[in-house]
C-alpha cells in the first residue's frame, strides 16, 4: 500500500470518527488543535485505525502521534 493510499484511508477514518468533512483535513492537521479531538476521541481514532488497517498498534507510542502526516508514517511502519 503506498503512502497516498494510507493517507487517504487515514483521512477517511478521521472524518468518520470526528464527524468532519474530508476536505477540512489537511496533511499536517493536528488531531487535537486543528481537528478538535478530545482524549476519548483520540482513543477512538487509534481503535478505528487498527480496524481500518487490521493492525495492532503500540498504544503508548500511538498516543504520541499528533498529526495526519505523523499517523501516515506511524501506521505505515506496521504495514
Amino acid at each position: 500500500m503506498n503512502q497516498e493510499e494510507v493517507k487517504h484511508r487515514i483521512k477517511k477514518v478521521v472524518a468518520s470518527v470526528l464527524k468532519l468533512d474530508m476536505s477540512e483535513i489537511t496533511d499536517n492537521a493536528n488531531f487535537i488543535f486543528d481537528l478538535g479531538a478530545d482524549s476519548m476521541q483520540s482513543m477512538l481514532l487509534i481503535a478505528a485505525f487498527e480496524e481500518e488497517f487490521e493492525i495492532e498498534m503500540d498504544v503508548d507510542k500511538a498516543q504520541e502521534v499528533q498529526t495526519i502526516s505523523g499517523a501516515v508514517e506511524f501506521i505505515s511502519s506496521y504495514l
Partner: protein
Amino acid sequence: MYRQLSQAEIEILKQQGCVAENWENVEVSISFSAEGISNVRFAGNIKLGTQRGKVQIDEGILKPATIRNCFIENCTIGENVFLSNVGSLINYKLGNQVVIENVGSVVVSGKSAFGNGHEIEVLNEGGGRELPVFDKLSAQIAYLLVIYRHNSTLIEKLKKLVSKYVETKRSIVGEIGENSIIQHTKSIKNVKIGPFAKIIGASKLVEGTIDSKQEAPVYIGEEVVAEDFIVLSGSKIDGSAILTSTFVGQGVKIGRQFSAENTTLFANSEAFHGEACSVFAGPYTVTHHKSTLLIAGMFSFYNAGSGSNQSNHMYKLGPIHQGIVERGSKTGSLSYMLWPCRVGAFSVVMNKHAGNFDTTELPFSYISVSDGKSVLTPAMNLFTVGTARDSKKWPTRDRRTGSEKLDLISFELFNPYIIQKIIDGSELLNKLHETTPKSKEFAKHKGVHINRLMLRTSKRYYDLAVNVFLTNQLVERLKDKSYSSLHEIIKLLKPAVESGCEKWIDLLGMIAEKKAINNLIELVCNEEIKTVENLQNGFVKIQKESAERSYAWSIAKLKALQNIDVSQISKQELITIVSDWKTNSIKFKNMILKDAEKEFDQLSRIGFGIDGDDDTENTADFEAIRGTYTNNSFIIGLKNEIAEIDSTYTTVIKKLEKLPE
C-alpha cells in the same frame, strides 16, 4: 474521696453568693477550698473536686480554676475546672480541667444512650435498611447491617449485638471528659462528650456522642446543629453544619453549611456546602461544592464535582431506588444520575443521564451522554494521571490520629476485587466484540452504549492491567530474596494459604475474600461472636490475612488465565514472566506519563500569560504557576518508579540466570 462541707466553708460559699437546696448534699474533695466558687446555685447531689490550679482556656491562655454564675444539679465536677455563666448543668460528670463558659444548658434528661442505637435510614430513603449507629461502629459492621438484608438471621443477630452494646451506654448521667472546652454554646441535651473535645459556639446538640480522645480530639464549631448523632474521634464539624440522624466517622471534616440527614460519613470523608440525604458514605467520600446533592447512594473513595446530583424519584411505591457508586469513582460538574444505577469502580460519570445503568463489570470507565444516550468508554480511567494520583494520596491523607482505627481500609489501587472486575470486563468486551456487527456504531450493555471500535482496544487495556498485577505478585516475591535453585524458588512462590479463585468483595472500603466474610457471618449467626468488639476483631483478623490470601488468589488466577503453575515453573518461564512484567509495567506507567503530559500542553496553557507579548512570557507565567513537566514531583515520582522497575528487572534476571539449568 469526698467529704461533707464544713460549716465555715458553707458560710464562705454563702458569702460568695452560693445557694444550695441542701448543703448536706454537696460533697467536696478532701483538699477542697471554697476560693473561686461564687454565685452558684447547687441542687441535688453534688460532688466537687478541688479548684485551686489553673485551667487552659485556649492556647497560651490560662485562667484560675473557677465556678461562677452557674446552676448545677446532680453533678460530679472534677478538679481545676472553669465553669462560668452556665445556665443549667444537670446530671453530668465532668472530668478534670473542663471548661464550660457562656453556655445556655448542658443537661441530661431521663435515661439516654447518647445517640447509640439510634436507627438511621441510609441508602433507601423509604427505609428497610435502617442502620443502628453506635460509637464503635466501623464501616464494615455497617456494611453488613445495611447490605446483607437478604440474610435475616444475620441482621437479627447483629442488631442483638448492637442492642447489647447500646445498653452499656444507657445512663441518666452524661460525661464530659477531661480537658474538654465548651464555650458560647446555646444548648446541649443528652450528649456524651469525650476528653479534649472543643465545642465552640454550637447552636444545639441533642442525643449524641462526641467520642473525642486526647490523641484525636473532636471539634464542633459555630452554629452547628446536631440531633441524633455520633461523632467519632478526630473529626471537625463547623460552619453552621446541620446534622440530623447522622453518623460521623473518624477524621471526618464537615462544614460550610453542609446538611446531612439519615447519613453516614465514614473515615476521612469531607463534606462542605452541599447536602446528603440517606447517604451511606464509606471512607474518603468527598463533596466540597454548592448545589451538590447526594441522595440514597452508597459511596467510597468518591469525589463529587460541583452540582453533582442524583434522584430516586422514579418510583410509584415510595422512594425505594438506590445508587451504588463503587470505590474510586467521580461525578463531574452538573452530572446527574437517575437511580437505580450502579457505577463500576474508578469510573467517571459526566453529563445528565436520564436512564438507569449498571456498569459494575466495566471499571475504570468514562460514562458520558451523547445524543441522549449513556455512552461508556471502558478502561479510559485506567491510565489517567488522576487515578494514579488519587490512589497515592489517600493513604497520606488518613487523618485518624487515634490508636484505634475503626474503619478497615484497603488503599491499594489493584487487588483481587478490582482485578476480577477487570477480568470480567475483558470477557464482556470480548463477547460484545464478537456479537456486535461492524455495521453498528455501538454495542449495548445494561443501559449504556459502548462504541464498537473501543471494544477490542479497551479489552487490551484491561488485559494489560491484569497482566501487570498478576506478574507483579511473583516479582515482588523474587526481588529481595536469595535463592540458588529452582526448588527454592518454587518453595518461595508457594502460597502460605490455600485459596482458589475465590470471589472478593468491597465492604465499604475494605477488600476481603467473600469466603472469609461468610465464615465470620456464620459465627455471628451461630452466636459464637457475642459482642461488637469480637465482630470488629473478626474483621481485623481477615484484613491481616488478606495480603497472603491476595497472593494465593493471584497464583490461582495465573494458572487459570495463563496456565502458569508456580509449583512446576521452569527457569525459562520465570525469565519470560519477569521480562513481560518489565515491558508491561513500563508501558502502563508510560501511558500515565502521557496523560500527565497533557497537563502541560497547549490546551492547558489557555488563559495563562494574558498580558504577555510573546510566547516566552506566556510560558513563564504558566510555569510560575504550574511548574514544568520535568520538575513536577508526581512526574518525577513516576519516572523513578519506571527506573525502579528497570532496576528490579535487572536484579531478578541476574539471579534467575545464575540458576542451574
